């Protein structure tokens, strides 16, 4: 049983074409505009077409940013609670003074505050998705401007928590596949609970369990964390950063083994 998506659902033809060229399989069915791509993994779910359309440094930067954002959307609220409750020494003194000054007069413990704001945000997001497009923006105005601002003014939550929740939300929007953002949304609450009870040790405990879960997970036989774990050095060319097109000579080893060669060597353009 897992929260993580084991298939990739997409409407975009370029995504499907790219997956087919890597030796993966696309499943089409009647009555839906979506195709299912299998097998998939964490790396594939964090790739977006734009990484390939943009120039190399930009594409690589965006890719690395997205990995970072996924981590942020998972553990930022939990880590904030852990640091504020247990590990003051990790923050520069001035920053910690600012945070405690902002928390002055807030009636709730930090963890409760964070959970409250996260829940509020999830609610706003769900309401915004369900409403017709014409009324949708009204939710974001009511939610962001009125509720957020008013709750700070009323002294119910501290401004730092609003920043943390907003950052987390933005980070979770950057996941290219929606179904990957959902497990992070749920697990976030677990990490807040762990961070609130045992600090960073709790976060580490959660990460260890998550890591073990992900490394024992397979999507149609392919290890979920490949090519990081198991490490496939050749396939690292298209992970945290992507290399030049002319350097991606081989297809991914686990899916493209039937025809491993993608292109000839020495395709680098001459000046």
């Amino acid at each position: 049983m897992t929260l993580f998506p084991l298939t990739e659902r997409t409407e975009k033809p370029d995504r499907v074409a790219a997956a087919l060229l890597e030796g993966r399989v696309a499943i089409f069915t009647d009555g839906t505009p979506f195709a299912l791509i299998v097998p998939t993994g964490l790396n594939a779910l964090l790739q977006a077409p734009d990484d390939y359309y943009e120039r190399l440094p930009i594409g690589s930067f965006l890719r690395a940013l997205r990995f970072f954002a996924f981590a942020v959307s998972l553990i930022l609220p939990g880590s904030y609670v852990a640091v504020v409750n247990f590990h003051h020494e990790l923050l520069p003194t001035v920053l910690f003074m600012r945070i405690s000054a902002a928390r002055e007069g807030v009636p709730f413990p930090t963890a409760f505050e964070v959970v409250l704001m996260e829940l509020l945000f999830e609610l706003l997001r769900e309401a915004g998705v369900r409403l017709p497009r014409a009324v949708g923006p009204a939710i974001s105005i009511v939610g962001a401007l009125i509720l957020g601002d008013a709750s700070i003014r009323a002294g119910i939550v501290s401004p730092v928590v609003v920043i943390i929740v907003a950052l987390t939300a933005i980070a979770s929007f950057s996941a290219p596949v929606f179904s990957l953002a959902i497990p992070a949304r749920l697990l976030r609450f677990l990490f807040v609970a762990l961070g609130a009870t045992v600090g960073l040790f709790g976060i580490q405990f959660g990460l260890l369990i998550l890591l073990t879960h992900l490394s024992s997970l397979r999507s149609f036989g392919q290890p979920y964390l490949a090519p990081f774990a198991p490490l496939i050095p050749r396939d690292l060319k298209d992970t945290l950063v992507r290399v030049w097109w002319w350097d991606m000579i081989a297809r991914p080893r686990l899916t493209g083994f039937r025809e491993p060669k993608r292109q000839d060597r020495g395709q680098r353009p001459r000046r």
Partner: protein
Amino acid sequence: MSCISTEKIDNRQLLFILFIMRTTVIISTLPVLTAGNAAQDAWASALVSYVGSAILATAIGALGTRFPDLTLIQYGQKLIGRTPAKILSFVYLWAFLWVAAVDLRIYSEVLVTAFFPATPLVFIAGAMAVASAYAAYAGIEAIGRNADFVFPIFFMTILASLLAAIPQMRLTRLQPVLARGLKPVLVGSITPMTITLQVPVITVIAPSVLRPKKVVKTTIWALTGAHLVLTAASLATVGVLGAKPAARSVFPFFRMIRAIRLTEFLERFEALVILPWGLGMFIGLSTSLYCCLKGLSQVFDLSDYRPLVGPMAAICITLSIHAAADIFQLRSFFRPETAGPYAFLLMLAPPAVLWPAYLARRWMRKRPGSRKGGRQR
């Protein structure tokens, strides 16, 4: 249970596992400094203990390469008969459990002294044991992948903390070199060698490795890496803290990191070092637990080791709490004169029995007129 018997890990993953396992314990306690009295010559002790550990690892692992698809428990039964081999296997099973318990204890002591002075030890030990038990339950493949994932983080952090120590090192603290002769250096190298007690895990993991004949080579490479790190860590710790204060502190390496202050912003970052170190500890713990469970299931001819995971984790937690009254007792146990004989006996007893049996068997078979010819597997 076919899916369990076909679980395979790469030799690289075994190398990462062994490297991480060894490095975590060895740098946190820095036994070269704290156990003996090598003082400023701790780095030399680290190098000497490398040679000793490599020889021990060969003695432990070499017989396994003759039986590439059997664990020690299985080939022991072929060599000296069912019951004696099973009794003998308990030596290593105890070693795995003991290593896991001591690892767990050291880890929880580090966290309690550094971060959670008010938290009961058993809570931290329990949480860590649960995480490791889950990994052991997931199997050696998952542990291998965890090691793949953790290794870069772990290695980079240690490298970064060693590099960060350079500006504050005073090389004069390493002098005088070998002033008191070789004896303290040799005595100081015994305790790091006793930590080779982790290496017998290869006798259980070897059949699950892709190239089991190269297991000893893999182990030696892992030891090489770990002892290079140990040498660098003891140089850095002595260089930053000085030999006497370093030898007096309980966890010299973390104290060294605590003393580092790069800039106004980057001070007291030991929590960021302890997190990856905890990841490393997790790899070591889950491997020890897995090997103990796997071995136990083979001794009792169980088809699956998974039902034993929970009870074994509970035993491990209890043992880690009751193994020593406090960290100082554990530390005095690690003195060369107590830990040395204990660990060497545990490590070398199975090979000392099985090697003669193996050689005698081979000699019997080569003799003309023996009952059976050919290789028996």
